């Protein structure tokens, strides 16, 4: 974790240290709709019946990025955002379970905050003066989960006060989008991004540990206003 932070800090420092050129820096500020599109395996562990999965719900959150142009087409972008807190709902499909356990299906069992800084190398098509410029990017996403907590419904199903942890993930990220040039300084941006996020969720209910693999195929829609300087 510390190593990864240092790596990110290094990238940031590298960006900041690049030679200056005209309007090579762009801030983007906007909103992103984060659709985690997570699939979990069934939970395993003691006292864990079959058929219990999770569904991570969508969240819209403010978006912030900084990009630095390396030349007319290539650039580096660090995408951030106000880390979204996702509701994690129960998906219970086991007719052998008692009715009042099944009735918890669909209820929010946990919440988790997702901090997912992503560094992209972008290639922007067409000439810098073009009104509309498509771009594509590839990079690395690092996702850290924190502030995970179990709700009353989660505690009821799990059997008591429960802690929740998700492992960090590092993986490939891709994005594609369009920029509309308003003037030399201002621009509008729309992008669709995704990343490969593989994690493992561990719950601990009064000593009873349960685990499930969780895989996100997030779809992040971004609308942002850019300011170049």
């Amino acid at each position, binding site marked *: *974790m510390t190593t990864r932070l240092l790596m990110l800090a290094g990238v940031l420092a590298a960006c900041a240290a690049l030679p200056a050129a005209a309007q090579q820096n762009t801030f983007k500020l906007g909103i992103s709709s984060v659709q985690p599109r997570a699939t979990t395996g069934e939970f395993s562990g003691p006292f864990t019946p079959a058929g219990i999965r999770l569904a991570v719900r969508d969240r819209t959150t403010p978006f912030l990025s900084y990009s630095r142009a390396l030349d007319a087409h290539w650039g580096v972008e660090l995408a951030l955002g106000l880390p979204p807190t996702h509701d994690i709902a129960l998906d219970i499909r086991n007719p052998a379970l008692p009715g009042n356990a099944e009735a918890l299906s669909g209820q929010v069992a946990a919440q988790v905050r997702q901090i997912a800084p992503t560094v992209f190398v972008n290639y922007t098509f067409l000439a810098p003066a073009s009104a509309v410029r498509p771009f594509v990017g590839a990079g690395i996403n690092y996702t850290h989960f924190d502030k995970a907590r179990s709700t009353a419904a989660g505690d009821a199903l799990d059997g008591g006060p429960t802690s929740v942890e998700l492992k960090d993930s590092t993986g490939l990220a891709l994005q594609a989008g369009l920029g509309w040039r308003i003037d030399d300084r201002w621009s509008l941006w729309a992008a669709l991004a995704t990343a490969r996020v593989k994690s493992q969720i561990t719950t601990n209910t*009064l000593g009873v540990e349960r685990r499930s693999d969780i895989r996100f195929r997030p779809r992040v829609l971004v609308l942002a206003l850019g300011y170049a300087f």
Partner: protein
Amino acid sequence: MTPVHLLTALAAASLMAACGGSDSPANLGRVDDSPARGALIQNPPPRTAFFTAADLAAKLQASASGRNLLAVAGTPKCGVDVQYIQYGTVGGAGEATDATGALMTPSGGAGCTGSRPVVLYGHGTTTAKRYNLANLLDEANPAWSEAALIASMYAAQGFIVVAPNYAGYDASRLGYHPYLNAEQQSSEMIDALAAARKALPGLLQPVQDSGKLFITGYSQGGHVAMATHRALQAAGQPVTASAPMSGPYALAAFNDAVFYGNVNLGSTLFTPLLVTSYQKAYGNLYTRLTDLYEPAYASGIDTLLPSDTPTATLTVPGGRLPQTALFSRTPPTAPAGSPPALQATLNAITPPTTPPQLAPLFALGFGPSNLLNNQARLNYLLDALARPDGAFPSPGTGLPAAEPQHPVRIATKKNDLRNWTPTRPVLLCGGSGDPSVFYSLNTQLMQGLWSAPSPAAMPAGLLSVLDVDSPAGGVADPFAAAKAGFAQAKAGAASAAVSAGASDGGASAVLQAYHGGLVPPFCNVAARGFFQQALALGL
């Protein structure tokens, strides 16, 4: 460059917030890593299953065995929460250890919440190491049917149930099970009860202990229940009533009968459990395993049970244990110089041919691939012949031999329960045709001992005895329903076997199902009625 620095600062702040996140296990209660006796290791304990009364009824309705149970136990009145308790206790030699069990609590409306009576339940013999009565959501757990039985019999009718899995099972760190060790098992029951009482206030749906304590258990658990009642009474602790069921209470007489050739069904599983338990407790049963066991089975038998290997696998031909042959079909040879009558006696009990109706059962206990060697059987018998039990082979005092010399006989006497008289109500329940724990040598023997004119007789009216396998005595018979139900279940098992092609009228199927399947629901429902009556009378 100021904006870049600003951004760096923002990112760093965001990432630092990530590091400071509160994702460490929090609020998970208190854990006692070196638990004293009766300590609740994880407090509060996790709840492992929860049913409303309707959920439990629906669950039981979903299977044939569940419907049978529901018919006997009655419609659930309460929901049931199942908690998994871990507690500190002792091993067979007094060593500190831990064990796990189930704490079942009623929930729902009136008669299910608030102040509730406690049933302390001892389970029957199992070879399954992963036996866990708290696993009521896992029908693949070998304890599931007994867990469903006690949940529906007691918890769903408003009783708090404390049911230890026993030391040596499930997650207990004890490497063996102190089987039928009266001192250890009663201590453990008391420890589990103490731990459960500590757990009650912190449950998701808390209930209170009303102070009424009922003790019951089946088979091994019948012995455990009686030993626990005895221990609590000796300690001056209150017991409201107890109902030991189908247990080997007169262990010394019962074990003598087995060595005399009255081999019970299940003996090749009971024997290694018993020998290991007493070897661990007393250390003098054998020097080498081959002192007792045939070489084919001796190696590793002291660590074989309990096991995660199914019994059926352990007892396949060529497996780790013989299926039923406890003894050799060749009679032991009387020592040189013995009176000729001794060899004749040995021949006559290898196997015994009387009583004729039991001869086929006893014969199953003999075979070419037998568990115990003839020298061990002979040594045992020589002591039993010289210093006979007062109940077997000839009825006399009804008490154990005064001074047995053979280490196994010394051990069984130490764990024989014919040495006390309860001062609180007791129901002894069993089935007189039980092929695994003989009724006459255990239940009936205790009945005689605790009834006038025996010097150990209980005060009039405190002892009730139920043989579910006896004719109902009309409207005055408080157990008429249990007897009629048992008769019906027995007939059902026989006719099912006949339909499946049995040519013996279903007798073998009934014999196989008798102890483990047919008797338990009816004895438990009788025990519950007995407890409810004690509550109604304010005893």
